[in-house]
C-alpha cells in the first residue's frame, strides 16, 4: 500500500513551478496586512460582508470599503463583478480599486472607496423624522440632484450595454464628507442574473427577502429578458420614493421562495396606484407569458378610480409639476414607451430652478448619521432583520461595490482614474458649495406636518 501511494505521487506531473509559486507568493499582498477592518463590519447580505477599512501604513487616512464576497472561490457572479467593474469608469458608478485573492481560505476581497450613505438609510431617516413630526433640513434641489446622478450613471452603464437589474434604494450610495462629497455611486449590479433567466437566482437567495417593489410590470408578467426599460422603471420607483418617503409600490412580502415571476399582490399594488392598463396604453401586454393569468385574476373595474396623478397628489406632488411629469414618463407601464435615461436627463425638470448640483447636499451640513458597525452575532441579527422586513424593506443591501483594478498603484493606473463627466459642473465644496448654500431652504422631505409648517413645506415639495 505504501508503495502504491508513493507511486501515485511520483506519477502526477508538477502542475506549478516551485520558484514561480514562491515568487508570486512573496509579491502578493494580503488584505489583512494592508488594511485594518476588524470589528468594522457595516454591511451584510447575500453578496457577502462589507467592512469599513483604513490603510495600516497610514499612507492615506481615507476610509475604504472592503467587500468579502460570499462563499469561496470565483463564482460566476464574482467573475462578472470583477470583469465588469474592472472596465467601468464613471463618477456615478462605484469604483473598484483593487482585488485581493486570499489563497489560503480562497476568499475574494474587493476594495472600493467608502460611501457613507445610501438611499435606503436616507429615506428611512426621513420616514422616522416624519413619524416623530420632526423636520429634516436638506437643500431643496437634493432629490433632483440625486435623480440626475442616478440617471447619469445608468446612462453610462446602458451605453456600455451593462444592465443593472437590481436597482433599489439600498444600491444607490451617496458619498459622505471628502473630495466626492454628496456624489451618487451606483452599486451592486445584479451580476449573477442571467439575461435569459431573470428570476432564477431568486430561489437561491436565502434568508433575506428579495423585494418586488422595484420590479417592472413586464417582469411580474413573465418577461424573460432584462432590458434597459426595467432599470428605468426601478428609477421611477426610487424617484417617487424620494419625493414621498414611501415606497410607491409597497407590498406586504412573505418570504418569497418561488421561482415563478408572476406575483399577484405586487401587480395589485401597482394597479392600485397606476390604474389598470388600457389596451391602447400597452398593446403588447397580450403577448406577455402571464397575460392569461392576469385576465383571470384581475378586474379592470376594481381600479377605475386609481391613477398616478391621484396617488402623487395625495402625497402633495401636484400633477402639473415638472417632477410629476417626469415621473409619469419613467413609470409608463408599456416598456416600449418608457423613456430612456438619455431622454430623462433632457427633461425640463432638470433645467428648472433649482438646478441639480454635483454635491447633492449642495454644501449644506449632512443630516444623516454615519453607518453603524454591525455585531458578528448572526443569530441575533436574523431575528432583527425578520422584524425589519415586516415593517420596511429588505435588508439594506449595502455598500459597495465598486470596482476596479488589481493594479494597485495609482500612478500606474491612469486607465482607471476618475474623470469628471462633462455634464456636471464642478462645485464640490469650496466656492460652488457656498453659492449653493444661499439657495438652501429648510424643508422636510416628504413630510406631512400639521400647522403652519405644512404649507411652506408643500411649496418646497412641489419644487423638487
Amino acid at each position, binding site marked *: 500500500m505504501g508503495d502504491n501511494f508513493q507511486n501515485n505521487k511520483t506519477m502526477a*506531473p508538477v502542475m506549478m513551478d516551485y520558484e514561480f509559486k514562491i515568487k508570486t507568493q512573496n509579491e502578493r499582498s494580503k488584505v489583512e496586512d494592508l488594511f485594518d477592518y476588524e470589528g468594522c463590519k457595516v454591511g451584510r447580505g447575500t453578496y457577502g460582508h462589507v467592512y469599513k477599512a483604513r490603510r495600516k501604513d497610514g499612507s492615506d487616512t481615507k476610509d475604504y470599503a472592503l467587500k468579502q464576497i460570499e462563499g469561496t472561490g470565483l463564482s460566476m457572479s464574482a467573475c462578472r463583478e*470583477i*470583469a465588469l467593474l474592472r*472596465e467601468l469608469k464613471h463618477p456615478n458608478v462605484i469604483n473598484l480599486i483593487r482585488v485581493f485573492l486570499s489563497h489560503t481560505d480562497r476568499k475574494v476581497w474587493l476594495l472600493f472607496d467608502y460611501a457613507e450613505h445610501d438611499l435606503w438609510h436616507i429615506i428611512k431617516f426621513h420616514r422616522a423624522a416624519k413619524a416623530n413630526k420632526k423636520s429634516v433640513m436638506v437643500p431643496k434641489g437634493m432629490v433632483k440632484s440625486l435623480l440626475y446622478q442616478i440617471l447619469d450613471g445608468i446612462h453610462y452603464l446602458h451605453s456600455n450595454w451593462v444592465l443593472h437589474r437590481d436597482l433599489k434604494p439600498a444600491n444607490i450610495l451617496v458619498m459622505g464628507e471628502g473630495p466626492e462629497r454628496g456624489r451618487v455611486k451606483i452599486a451592486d449590479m445584479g451580476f449573477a442574473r442571467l439575461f435569459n433567466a431573470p428570476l432564477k437566482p431568486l430561489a437561491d437567495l436565502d434568508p433575506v427577502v428579495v423585494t418586488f417593489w422595484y420590479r417592472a410590470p413586464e417582469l411580474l408578467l413573465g418577461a424573460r429578458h432584462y432590458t434597459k426599460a426595467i432599470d428605468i422603471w426601478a428609477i421611477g420607483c426610487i424617484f417617487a420614493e424620494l419625493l414621498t418617503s414611501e415606497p410607491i409600490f409597497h407590498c406586504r412580502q412573505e418570504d418569497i421562495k418561488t421561482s415563478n415571476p408572476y406575483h399577484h399582490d405586487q401587480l395589485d399594488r401597482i394597479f392600485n396606484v397606476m390604474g389598470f392598463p388600457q389596451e391602447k396604453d400597452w398593446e403588447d401586454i397580450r403577448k406577455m407569458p402571464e397575460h392569461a393569468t392576469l385576465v383571470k385574476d384581475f378586474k379592470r373595474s376594481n381600479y377605475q378610480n386609481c391613477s398616478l396623478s391621484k396617488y402623487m397628489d395625495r402625497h402633495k406632488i401636484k400633477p402639473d409639476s415638472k417632477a410629476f411629469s417626469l415621473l409619469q414618463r419613467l413609470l409608463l407601464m408599456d416598456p416600449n414607451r418608457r423613456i430612456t435615461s438619455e431622454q430623462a436627463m433632457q427633461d425640463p425638470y432638470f433645467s428648472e430652478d433649482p438646478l441639480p448640483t454635483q454635491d447633492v447636499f449642495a454644501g449644506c451640513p449632512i443630516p444623516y448619521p454615519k453607518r453603524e458597525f454591525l455585531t458578528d452575532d448572526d443569530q441575533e441579527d436574523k431575528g432583527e432583520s425578520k422584524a425589519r422586513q415586516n415593517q420596511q424593506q429588505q435588508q439594506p443591501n449595502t455598500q459597495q461595490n465598486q470596482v476596479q483594478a488589481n493594479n494597485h498603484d495609482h500612478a500606474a493606473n491612469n486607465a482607471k482614474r476618475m474623470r469628471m463627466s462633462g455634464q456636471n459642473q464642478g462645485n464640490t465644496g469650496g466656492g460652488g458649495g457656498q453659492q449653493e448654500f444661499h439657495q438652501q431652504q429648510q424643508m422636510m422631505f416628504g413630510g406631512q406636518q400639521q400647522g403652519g409648517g405644512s404649507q411652506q413645506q408643500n411649496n418646497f415639495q412641489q419644487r423638487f
Partner: protein
Amino acid sequence: MAGNFWQSSHHQQWILDKQDLVRDRQLDLAKLSEEEYQKIFNFFASIIQVLGEQLKLRQQVIATATVYFKRFYARNSLKCIDPLLLAPTCVFLASKVEEFGVISNSRLITTCQTVIKNKFSYAYGQQEFPYRTNHILECEFYLLENLDCCLIVYQPYRPLLLFVQDIGQDDQLLTYAWRIVNDSLRTDVSLLYPPYQIAIGALHIACVMLGKENLKPWFAELNVDMDKIQEIVRSIINLYEMWKSYDEKKEIQSLLGKMPKPCPAPQR
C-alpha cells in the same frame, strides 16, 4: 459588455509591443525555436478549441479562453504552470465571465479526460488527464492574478460582422473571414493588434482567396493603418505556410518533451 474598446483594459494594458513580447519569451526561446514555440501554442489552442466545442461553448468564449492562455504566457515562461492545466482553467474562467452558465467542476474534469484520451492520444499516448478540480481552482487564482483581473476581451467577430454588413452582406466572404479569425488565434496577433484590425486583416485574406478584386476600393477607403493590416496578414499567412509542411501528430510528442517544465519543490 460591448462597451468602448478604446477605454478598455484590453486596449490600455493588453496591446503588447512586439519587442517586449520577444524579450519576455527569452527563457523559453533558449530551449525552443520560435517555430517550435508557435507549434506548441498551436497545439494548446487546439485543446482549448476542442474542449470548448465539447462543452458547447460559443466561439466567442473559446476565443476569450485562448486569449487568456496567450496573455498568461506572454508574461510567464511555459515552465511556470503546466499548459495542460492552464488550458482548461482558461476555458473554465472564460465561461463564467461570458455568462454562459457555469460548467460544473465534475463535467469539466470528465470532459478533459475524454478529450485528452479520444482526441489527443497522439500527444499523450496512454497517459490520462492528470489534474483534478482542486488543481483547476488553485490555478484559476494564479491566472486571474496574472491577467491583472482584465477579463473582458474584445474579439474580431463583432467588427467583422459590421464590416461585412457594410460591404453588402456576402455569406461566403463572412464564412471565410470568420474561419481566418479563428485561425488567427493560433498566432500572436491577438496580443499585438486591436480586434478591428484583425477583422480587416482576415477580410483581406478572404478577399484574396476568393479573388474579390472589386473590394479594393472598399479597403482603400478605410481609415486604417494599412501597414498594421499587412503585418497581421503576414502573421496569418505564415501560419498557413507552417501548416503546409507540419504534421502535428508526428512532431508534437518530441516538442512537448522539449518544452520547459515546472520544477518541484527542492527535496529536503
